[in-house]
């Protein structure tokens, strides 16, 4: 566990409450966390456990109801638009559903050019921009020449998610929040996406916050695992300690839910809820 590394993103008592009165729903309930630079952190939990809400708070897309988030040891200040834009140069995201993540009215070029502009390359010569875009597409094994002038909805889900990684490749943020990046993708493309994500992480050394409901996947990719249940972190630690020696019954249940192809199903353990 990389405790000697510098703190990158941490939170104390971070809470998000939606609605008021009887409709009140506490999506994230006083969570504390310390994410270190260069780590791969998995946040694992069921649907509705508050993972995505937490991710949006980390990204600064929604504000927290309570608690503080610290970025590189400093209290995060994203109150003004300028500060938010500065923050987003450091933290980026890959969303769950590639089909809804793109503006369907903009061509793929626009998406990539936005990234170049954000990295301060607005006034680069056109040829250099194309070169950068080609490089980014090449990284995820897409052909820029085929994509240019196409619309996002003309691509497959896997291609769109790869394009999302190409975007991150261009932006090179310090932190990447990947919110279930493979859950909407078919099983064959899933491994490819993960491979590109890991390759990108290895090349840039960025902190990767990986959000998933699949504890098997979390074990496969991460250094540190946070288990989330109903808005709270019930258990966290190194991937090995959490998954091989789970303390919480919830964690054990998550582990037992991972299907094992090589073993026959024991129907007595399957709970039909």
């Amino acid at each position: 566990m990389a405790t000697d590394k510098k703190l990158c993103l941490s939170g104390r008592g971070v809470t998000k409450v939606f609605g008021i009165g009887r409709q009140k729903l506490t999506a994230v309930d006083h969570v504390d966390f310390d994410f270190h630079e260069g780590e791969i952190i998995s946040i694992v939990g069921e649907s509705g456990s508050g993972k995505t809400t937490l991710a949006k708070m980390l990204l600064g897309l929604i504000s927290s109801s309570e608690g503080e988030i610290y970025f590189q040891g400093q209290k995060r200040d994203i109150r003004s638009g300028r500060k938010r834009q500065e923050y987003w140069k450091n933290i980026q995201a890959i969303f769950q559903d590639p089909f809804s993540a793109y503006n369907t009215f903009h061509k793929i070029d626009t998406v990539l050019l936005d990234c170049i502009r954000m990295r301060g390359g607005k006034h680069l010569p056109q040829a250099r921009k194309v070169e950068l875009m080609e490089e980014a597409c090449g990284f995820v094994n897409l052909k820029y020449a085929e994509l240019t002038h196409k619309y996002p909805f003309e691509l497959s889900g896997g291609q769109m998610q790869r394009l999302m990684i190409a975007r991150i490749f261009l932006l090179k943020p310090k932190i990447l929040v990947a919110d279930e990046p493979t859950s909407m993708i078919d099983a064959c493309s899933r491994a490819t996406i993960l491979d590109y994500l890991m390759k990108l992480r290895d090349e840039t050394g960025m902190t990767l916050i990986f959000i998933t409901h699949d504890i098997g996947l979390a074990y496969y990719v991460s250094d540190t695992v946070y288990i989330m249940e109903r808005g709270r972190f019930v258990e966290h630690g190194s991937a090995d300690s959490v998954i091989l020696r789970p303390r919480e019954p919830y964690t054990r249940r998550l582990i037992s839910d991972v299907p094992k192809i090589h073993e026959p199903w024991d129907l007595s353990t399957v709970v039909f809820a």
Partner: protein
Amino acid sequence: MGHTIRQIFRSGKFVVGFTILMSVLLVLVVYPWWVPDPPLQILGQGTFFPPGIYVSAYDASNAPVLYTLNLRDAADKRIESRLSQEDRLAMQEWLVADGLPESAIDLADTDALLALWEEHYEPDRRLPGMTFARMRYYQRVDAGLDSLRSAGGGEILAARNPETGELEETGMVKLTDYANISQVANVRILPLGTDNFGRDVLTQLVAATGVSLLIGFVAGLIATAIGLTLGLLAGYIGGWVDDIIMFFTNLFTVIPTFVLLILISFSIGQDQRGAITIAVVIGFTSWVWTTRSVRSQVFSLRNRDHVNLSKLSGHSLPRIIVADILPYIASYVVMALILQISSGILAEAGLSILGLGPRTTEVPTLGLMMNWAMIYQAHVLGNWWAYLPVLLTIALISFSMNLMNTGLDQVFNPALRD
């Protein structure tokens, strides 16, 4: 964009609505070439001339060539057209009083009726209970019939000699004389007759449709522009901006729009109310529901991932609203605009009927025409041409726009696609 337009024009309902609206616009453009008269010019002395072709009696009798046509039923037709249903009933009344059974009299058979009349009528006889005026009436009817029958040769045209003041014969119109209508100098077709002021209804209707469409368009544009701007700001920014905008929107929702419209129109005063002023007033009172619905649409859009991605790409708030929100509600806004135009036209008609429309001296509007027809009791007098075409035009425009909207809805709303 091109793809969307192609899809829209594949919708039957939209195409029908669009065609109707375009035909109306085409008529607006073409008609003034055909009848260049100003729409409010007073042509007729008198009110509510029925629709028809008006031939100058003077020019017809003085046509360069008069043709002789011997038509077998000319005399009968002449008598038939002179002898009104009222006269026939009066004749029947006389004959029955004279002792004839009612069943023996056929009102439709002019020849038989005249024969019976000839046989039984005595001008000096006063039937029991008959007033003197009634007696005089029968004498007039009888004299009219006599003159029709006796004018075998025709009628003498005469003019007064300016020096002597005597009538002098200038010509003779025989019963068999016919003028060719194309040789008559003055013929005016009034397809929808004239209104209470003696103005050509059709010319007025065409001009009024144009003005009303303009009013609807301006009102719709203003309402949609206000509604869209407020809705986008309230929906996207949220928080206190939303609170303030919704406070005013709710305030306007609670006050009945039409009452507000009446009060504003009234306080502006008749002299200040031009067509555009009315359009602006309508626009400023009807933005409310556009705001509310745009706001709720934006609400559901603002947390979509593509908006988040745009934020993460460092785009500014105006740019996100314009590039990431607006295109997604554009189809909805177009539909709202069409509905606003259509309801703007109806609002103007409603206002004008109450006498709070544009001032009456410059341009006609559909509402003003209805107002005039109502004030001069066209509906009571049975002068359908003064109001029915106006009603149909309003209905047609409304119908075409709503049809276009339904068509657009089918294209843009996936749940309605077949």
